[in-house]
């Protein structure tokens, strides 16, 4: 790959500053798809934009690509301001959710199209097509047309078409959503290896937290056009910045119990029968068990906790190593290690400093 560190190592691969995108709806109704986004991705980094559908993550990606113009704010690619530039000059490659292969062209011509657009001479074109096809394992498909391909094959062709441009940054919009569940798992792994191999900065949009946590070097969580948190998957999971991130990431989501003007949060896997939690600094609470699910060895215990705050329904995930006998209808003493508790403002949902909970 070409080195693109002319502007110094400090230059981010992509940087968005104060991006706002307003769509004019009918009857002067405005939709703020992006509501002041600041985010940047480093060279060679895998950044995942995660959020529920309609949160603006695709709009953000399209704005970076140059398919949408921002209402306010700036986009920098490789340290250069690219506002107002068409996608062609931004040196970005994007794989759209539908893959958008040209239906009238063969796989070969599909991959060749961006090279022709750049007036690459024929022999170089052929070499690049071959290189991309080999890398993605599709040399046998070059003569086919898109409608003769399976979903997974189409995705590879779309990737190859993006790859031959040697872009400064890859933009992937839910590239796995068109695949069935089985293929998704294997393709996810391949995508990651592929990016490691290429070493190009990649921004990946998804609503699937498993994909996000599995693929991303860093994850940016978006909701309603705003950035909620950016961090490593571990940060996002362990140190959520607010209740949205806390409940959107993790399955089952984080339990939140209201206590005065605070919400006390703890992950289901940290809520265990009290005898399984080290004695020092644990917080105990009685759990009235309503239902137990056995899921691949784990026990998911549904019940209601009292004492530490308002009576709230919670979920506890007990690994197979915890063998405490439990039955619906009983009340059992459960506990959470004190350092696993997270605290949020009850009104705004923002993370706050820990509060002492006696017991």
């Amino acid at each position, binding site marked *: 790959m070409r080195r693109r560190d002319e502007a110094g190592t400090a230059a981010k691969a992509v940087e968005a500053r104060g991006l706002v995108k307003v769509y004019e709806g009918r009857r002067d109704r405005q939709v703020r798809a992006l509501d002041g986004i600041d985010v940047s991705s480093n060279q060679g980094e895998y950044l995942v934009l995660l959020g529920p559908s309609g949160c603006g993550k695709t709009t953000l990606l*399209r704005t970076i*690509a*140059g*398919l949408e113009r921002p209402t306010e704010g700036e986009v920098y690619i490789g340290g250069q301001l690219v506002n107002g530039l*068409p*996608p*062609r000059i931004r040196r*970005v*490659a*994007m794989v*759209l*959710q*539908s*893959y*958008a*292969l*040209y*239906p*009238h062209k063969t796989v070969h011509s599909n991959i060749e*199209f*961006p090279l*022709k*657009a*750049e007036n690459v001479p024929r022999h170089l074109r052929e070499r690049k097509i071959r290189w991309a096809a080999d890398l993605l394992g599709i040399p046998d498909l070059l003569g086919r047309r898109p*409608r003769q391909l399976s979903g997974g094959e189409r995705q590879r062709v779309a990737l190859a*078409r*993006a790859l031959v*441009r040697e872009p400064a940054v890859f933009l992937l919009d839910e590239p796995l959503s068109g695949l069935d569940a089985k293929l998704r798992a294997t393709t996810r792994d391949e995508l990651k290896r592929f990016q490691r191999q290429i070493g190009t900065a990649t921004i990946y949009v998804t609503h699937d937290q498993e994909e996000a946590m599995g693929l991303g070097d860093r994850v940016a969580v978006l909701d309603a056009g705003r950035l909620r948190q950016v961090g490593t998957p571990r940060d996002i999971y362990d140190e959520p910045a607010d209740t949205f991130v806390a409940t959107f990431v993790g399955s089952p989501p984080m339990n939140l119990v209201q206590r005065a003007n605070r919400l006390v949060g703890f992950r289901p896997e940290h809520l265990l029968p009290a005898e399984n939690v080290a004695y020092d600094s644990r917080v105990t609470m009685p759990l009235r068990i309503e239902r137990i699910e056995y899921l691949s060895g784990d026990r998911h215990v549904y019940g209601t906790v009292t004492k530490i705050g308002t009576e709230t329904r919670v979920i506890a995930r007990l690994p197979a190593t915890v063998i405490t006998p439990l039955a619906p209808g009983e009340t059992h003493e459960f506990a959470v290690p004190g350092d696993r508790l997270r605290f949020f403002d009850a009104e705004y949902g923002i993370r706050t400093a820990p509060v002492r909970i006696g017991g």
Partner: protein
Amino acid sequence: MSGTRARAGDRTRLTDREGFLAWAFLLPTIVYLTALVVAPFGLTVAFAFSRSTSDAPSYRFGGLRGFRAVFGDDVFWRSLLDTLTLTCVSVVLVVVLGTVLAHVLRADLRFRRTVRTLVLLPWTTPVALSAISWRWLLGPAGSPVERVLRGASLLHGGGSPLGRTGPAAVAVVAAHVWRLTPLAAVIVAAGLNAVPSGVWDAARLDGAGFWRRLFGVTVPLTLPVTAVAAVFTAAITFVDMAVVRVLTGGGPHDSTQVLPTLAYLRGVEGGDIGAGAAASLFLLPLFLAGVVVALRAVRRAEAIR
């Protein structure tokens, strides 16, 4: 047991049987179209080999008499050539202008509704009436076009532009192009809408400039639907008699007659049904060509998907 069967029979009413319904629903249309299109078509062929006239309309076999009358008619040969030229020129212009207009109609414009309503005028107005308006615009002394032509000294002497061979022919082509471009635009716009929008984005992302997007992506993808627009244009232009009848009346000196107006002139006004039918039969080859092109376009459209 017989009771059960009777009840079961009761339940599968005639209205539940798909085979019956399909026939019952299609039959009226098939009967109607057979009676008033297929049968009259046969009758036209029969008339072409007859010596029937409007004074003696009952059928009398006349062999090739009708065709001989037509072939001996100078106006026929001229109108045949005129019809072909008119159609070809119109189709080319309509397809090109229609494609441009289709893109404009899809563009995000202020006043979009107004523009579209105005653009629809030529297509929705009864042809004969737009021909009247065109004649008013072109014809009489003091009309804008007449004044412009005179100002550019392209028109000398008295009389209206429509009284001259060249300008009259141009006027007929212009009226047809004007009338059918909106229709072609609507058809092509529909074809553009049918292309998944991701493809346009992909082409921009792939770095293709305007011309490459146009000829590498847009044109190939809308080729089938453009062919449909061309067939419609050809079919409508080839068989139209309203424009010529109202705008030029076939004149001056029968120089703008087309096959349909000639068939009317000979068969209805001239009273020679045999000759009129024979002349109109020459419309058939284009109809068949149109059918072939249409079928091919359909098949191509299928092949792409």
